[in-house]
């Protein structure tokens, strides 16, 4: 059966799809006649940022396309191209609109304001300055849109209330979830009483160690001005002469063999320059699967969205048309979507050998950890019970969609990649394309978030590179938002079965976890379910099964193994406390971890202080009541949860150069995913060198100019790369001491590649979150009334960005708790709600205010004692919300997300 249905391209004309009541026109793909008629064009006139622009556009171009691709105004971003995210917001005759959702021809005769039109004469608009001062942009990809909506609001209502600000910006998503900062910035620009710029609760506990000059003060991001003016060039803004555009054809089947692929008609389409399929491209994407061989184009295809072909053409519309002309003959196979079902006898094997993915040594066994004897522990316990919890696939959903630009110059490849790790990306590209690493350059000046799904090189980077080689021209390959949701990766769904035993006094005696993680059909992530290690317990046994399924691949997403695992174990702990009649706060103080795995000392453990100070700031004792205390339909409750995340040390590199003018340039391989890494590196250099911050420049994001970096994942940038910066600074100071300062054209250059190790100790960051919710039990709605997040991340290097980071992770976690799920149709294996709208990603109106408290310390490791901060904030958030819902309603929610139908208790 020739299937012309192109999932992710819509139905296409091949099916009997009628457009409203009008009859079928000739389906696109069946035309075997000569070159298609040229696309209709119109000459239009738009006043853009006050200047009249005349251009000829194709009628089908959106306004966003016309602005970005044909007027060179790339400050307006495209996040979803469907009017579901707001990144493309511009003002049309003064009113904010989604420029992706209107044709350029419809703006003929109108005036348009883009972000480039906000500043004048090089001076920032007060709103832009407020965004800089109040840490508005994290990754910056949503910032242009936020600015224009905010500007329109202030022009109409110069003194809005916070809720009016949220309502005006409700159509602008921020996945970094920096909502509170944007509101603070808009209110500040409106002249409202300023919130504390740092935004943190006082009384967080003093630093041990010497007071520092630069580190520890709230410092705006050094590149914030670029992000608020639209001047920051993200990968999608890169334009190379002769650049082609590429798109990927994807499987509509969850599992199928490919009998035949016919590309003849697609090749014959004028403007098509190269086509890749499994027939002519056998490149292996080595980081795409650590256990099996994963090609760029696989056969069989193993999930809806698995790549089948890639086409490079003169523009994106032509590339899309070409996809429609590729004919693929599939033989559908059985498929399985659920990780437990995939292990049942008779389940279709997705890879030879079955669906339990082998461990690191190739054994078909779960990942097991044991200490003590759980059976003995259960026997000795006063209370023993079992419980089951589930979580689902959640997409990282970063605002910047997937894009890669590849260009060859002779044998040397340059890839403009949106990546969290230029060094890893470079190494992977070299390996998979069989090139010497020195012949591969990876560039990422700015990137718009990733939260773990942009760690290494991806199949689309390789596809872009191969298409560029085949066609002899630079190639830009882009994904739609739907492709980003389905064809990259997200957080693995889990099934968690717990058995726990406790003493009557609430002391833990034994914990067993049988876990199953749905990894998709390619093993790219660990599949871990973490959280049991947050508790002190003499007898523990965890067995986690990473399982292949015919669904979207699952891999790293912000604390990959944690929020779902902590949801599970913290629900069990909360249930235990409830059954024993113990206040959860007391329960935690009794049982929280004091040594890693009850045996290895921590370098510093602020967990208990986080719990105590957080609870005090929250008013836990005053707010907590036994579960289900309110009898009316609107019920209040409180919940808490703890978290922990590794704060390791390790190898990375930095180079610092001092020139004759006195400028220090720090070269580090960071790309600043939104964490403020560039600023942090500059602060560390300034502190160690003993100079003011303006004397530091940072060169980043280019493997030709930056040394190796571990990559911005695992919350390691500050710890690893920051440490290298300090070492390089010390080396530079030694050089200056020996040789004096450079003069004229002379320079001093120092490099460092430290590889610190920690033996016999565990280094962790900790957190404790406290939430009050209001549950409307008749409507099935949960609202967050109060949220306090207490964090031990050692010394806080920049409280401005650190607070933003914590709030962002918290809001992301609330979204995971209440809304987000990639839902699959069981009958067809097709994901039904891929995208921002389908996922119900949190908006300004959903995000509560989050109060942040830091418990600071300096354990003598890392840069000035700083520990990991990027991932910890999401870790306790899901569990804290779930436990608060239990406390409010008296009903334990076992399955994520906690949606309305589950709360109303009548859904499936």
């Amino acid at each position: 059966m020739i299937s012309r249905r192109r999932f992710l391209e819509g139905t296409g004309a091949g099916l009997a799809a009628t457009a409203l009541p009008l009859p079928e026109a000739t389906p696109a793909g069946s035309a075997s006649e000569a070159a298609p008629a040229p696309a209709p064009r119109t000459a239009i006139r738009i006043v853009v940022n006050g200047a009249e622009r005349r251009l000829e556009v194709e009628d089908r171009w959106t306004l966003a396309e016309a602005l970005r691709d044909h007027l060179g105004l790339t400050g307006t971003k495209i996040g979803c191209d469907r009017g579901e995210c707001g990144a493309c917001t511009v003002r049309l005759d003064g009113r904010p609109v989604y420029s992706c959702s209107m044709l350029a021809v419809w703006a003929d005769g109108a005036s348009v304001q883009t972000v480039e039109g906000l500043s004048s004469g090089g001076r920032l608009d007060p709103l832009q300055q407020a965004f800089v001062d109040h840490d508005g942009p994290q990754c910056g990809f949503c910032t242009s849109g936020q600015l224009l909506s905010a500007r329109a609001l202030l022009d109409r209502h110069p003194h809005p209330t916070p809720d009016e600000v949220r309502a005006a910006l409700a159509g602008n998503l921020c996945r970094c979830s920096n909502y509170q900062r944007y509101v603070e910035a808009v209110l500040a620009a409106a002249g409202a009483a300023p919130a504390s710029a740092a935004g943190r609760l006082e009384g967080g506990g003093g630093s041990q160690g010497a007071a520092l000059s630069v580190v520890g003060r709230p410092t705006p991001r050094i590149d914030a001005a670029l992000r608020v003016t639209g001047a920051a060039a993200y990968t999608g803004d890169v334009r190379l002469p002769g650049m082609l555009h590429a798109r990927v054809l994807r499987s509509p089947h969850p599992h199928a063999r490919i009998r035949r692929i016919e590309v003849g008609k697609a090749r014959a389409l004028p403007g098509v320059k190269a086509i890749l399929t499994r027939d002519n491209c056998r490149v292996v994407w080595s980081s795409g699967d650590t256990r099996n061989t994963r090609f760029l184009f696989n056969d069989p295809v193993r999930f809806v969205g698995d790549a089948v072909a890639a086409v490079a053409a003169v523009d994106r519309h032509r590339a899309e048309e070409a996809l429609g002309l590729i004919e693929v003959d599939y033989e559908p196979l059985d498929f399985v979507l659920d990780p437990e079902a995939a292990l049942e006898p008779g389940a279709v094997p997705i890879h030879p050998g079955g669906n339990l993915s082998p461990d690191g040594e190739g054994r078909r066994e779960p990942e097991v950890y044991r200490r003590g004897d759980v059976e003995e522990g259960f026997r000795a316990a006063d209370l023993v019970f079992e419980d089951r919890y589930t979580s689902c696939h959640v997409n990282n959903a970063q605002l910047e969609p997937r894009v890669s630009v590849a260009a060859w110059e002779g044998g040397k490849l340059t890839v403009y990649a949106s990546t969290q790790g230029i060094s890893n990306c470079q190494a992977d590209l070299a390996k998979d394309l069989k090139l010497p690493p020195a012949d591969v350059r990876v560039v990422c000046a700015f990137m718009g978030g990733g939260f773990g799904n942009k760690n290494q090189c991806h199949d689309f980077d390789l596809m872009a590179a191969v298409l560029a080689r085949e066609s002899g021209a630079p190639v830009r390959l882009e994904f739609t938002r739907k492709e980003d949701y389905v064809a990259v990766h997200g957080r693995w769904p889990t099934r968690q079965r717990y058995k726990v035993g406790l003493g009557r006094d609430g002391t833990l005696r034994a914990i067993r976890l049988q876990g199953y993680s749905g990894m998709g059909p390619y093993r790219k992530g660990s599949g871990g379910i973490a959280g049991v290690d947050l508790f002190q317990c003499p007898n523990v046994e965890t067995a986690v099964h990473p399982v292949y399924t015919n669904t979207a691949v699952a891999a790293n997403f912000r604390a990959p193994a944690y929020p779902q695992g902590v949801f599970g174990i913290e629900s069990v702990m909360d249930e235990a406390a409830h059954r024993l009649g113990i206040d959860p706060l007391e329960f935690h103080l009794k049982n929280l971890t004091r040594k890693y795995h009850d045996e290895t000392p921590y370098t510093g453990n602020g967990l208990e202080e986080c719990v105590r100070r957080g609870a005090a700031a929250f008013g836990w004792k005053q707010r907590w009541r036994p579960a289900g205390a309110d009898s009316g339909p609107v019920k209040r409750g409180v919940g808490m949860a703890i978290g922990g995340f590794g704060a390791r040390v390790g190898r990375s590199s930095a180079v610092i150069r001092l020139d004759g003018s006195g400028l220090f340039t720090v070269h580090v391989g960071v790309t600043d995913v939104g964490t403020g890494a560039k600023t942090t590196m500059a602060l560390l250099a300034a502190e160690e060198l003993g100079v003011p911050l303006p004397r530091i420049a940072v060169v980043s994001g280019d493997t030709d100019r930056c040394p190796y970096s571990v990559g911005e994942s695992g919350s390691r940038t500050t710890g690893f790369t920051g440490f290298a910066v300090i070492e390089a600074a010390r080396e530079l100071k030694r050089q200056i001491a020996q040789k004096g300062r450079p003069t004229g054209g002379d320079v001093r250059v120092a490099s460092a590649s430290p590889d610190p190790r920690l033996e016999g100790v565990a280094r962790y960051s900790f957190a404790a979150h406290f939430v009050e919710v209001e549950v409307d039990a008749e409507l099935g709605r949960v609202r967050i009334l109060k949220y306090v997040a207490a964090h031990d991340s050692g010394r806080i290097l920049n409280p401005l960005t650190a607070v933003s980071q914590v709030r962002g992770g918290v809001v992301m976690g609330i979204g995971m708790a209440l809304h987000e799920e990639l839902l699959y149709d069981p009958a067809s294996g097709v994901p039904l709600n891929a995208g921002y709208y389908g996922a119900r990603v949190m908006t300004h109106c959903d995000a509560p205010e989050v109060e942040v408290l830091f418990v600071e310390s300096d354990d003598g490791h890392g840069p000035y004692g700083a520990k990991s901060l990027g991932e910890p904030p999401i870790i306790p958030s899901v569990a804290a919300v779930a436990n608060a819902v239990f406390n409010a309603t008296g009903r334990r929610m076992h399955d994520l997300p906690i949606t309305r139908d589950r709360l109303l208790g009548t859904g499936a």
Partner: protein
Amino acid sequence: MRPLASVRPRELDEAVRLLEQARRGGRRAVLAGGGSDLLGMVKERLVEPDLIVSLRDVRGLDQVASGAEGTRIGGLVTLDAVSEHPAVRAGYAALAEAAQSVGTPQIRNVATLAGNVCQRPWCWYYRAGFPCFKNGGGTCFAATGENQLHAIFGGGPSYIVHPSDTAPALVALGALFRLVGPEGERVVPAGEFFTLPGKDPARENVLKADEVLAEILLPPPAPATRSTYYKVLDREAWTHAVVSAAVAVDLEGGVCRRARIVLGGVAPAPWPLPRVERMLEGQRLTADLVAQAATAAVRGAVPLTKNGYKVPLAKAVVRRALLAVAGPAR
């Protein structure tokens, strides 16, 4: 997107003629008001027009005129303008609130009232391109599939819910729709504009080929009319109604002279509740009566496998919406 042409006629007659002409010539033509939902569907290849007839420049369709005979709202008036217009806010609060509840400011700045009323379904099977009734096929995948968001009334053979917020309000307010097509004009009451799938599962309303919803006519509100639109949505913004209720009551001396209640999010068309309306008319809206009305509102609901929660939810929504218009202090 495939190549397409867009034209911007200045007269409604011309727009209709362009549609008709295209169809006769074997080309697919569609109308665009604000066009935002349309473009999304074009990009997803649910609709593949050769010609988009944009109505933005059409004269006379973007005005709100209010007088003794009621209020006329041109089909092209944006949702933002509808929600902000003093006459609408004063006399037809349910419509103002419903319009305000749609989407986001960016959407409301371009989306038109007619476009919102004629919006295609947001069923995820339909939008993902499954060959269902709405896509010209012969089945409904939600019937036995993921039907959490689907109909509990009036469903079959398709189980979509009508996605418009303004539609239930317009039905509750007794609006009339002026339709203009190649064969001339006709006026259809809002309550008769929408159709159930039992009649023709491929469509949601009675619009004929090349017909345009040109104008919405609202009767003058009685001085004692109070109306509201109560919407429950997943997320606090930017989402279609899970269940909603448009309620309009005439209260005189505390007695309900006339009641109109129309639900959204529960059926393939806005779902009026005539039996409940009769329970309320001539009565005082006490808490007890309202509770009984809410119970009656969901009698006869036929939930599917996964949307049973909409039954108690609809009951709660009716109760709360009625209490909201009944006003303070019984």
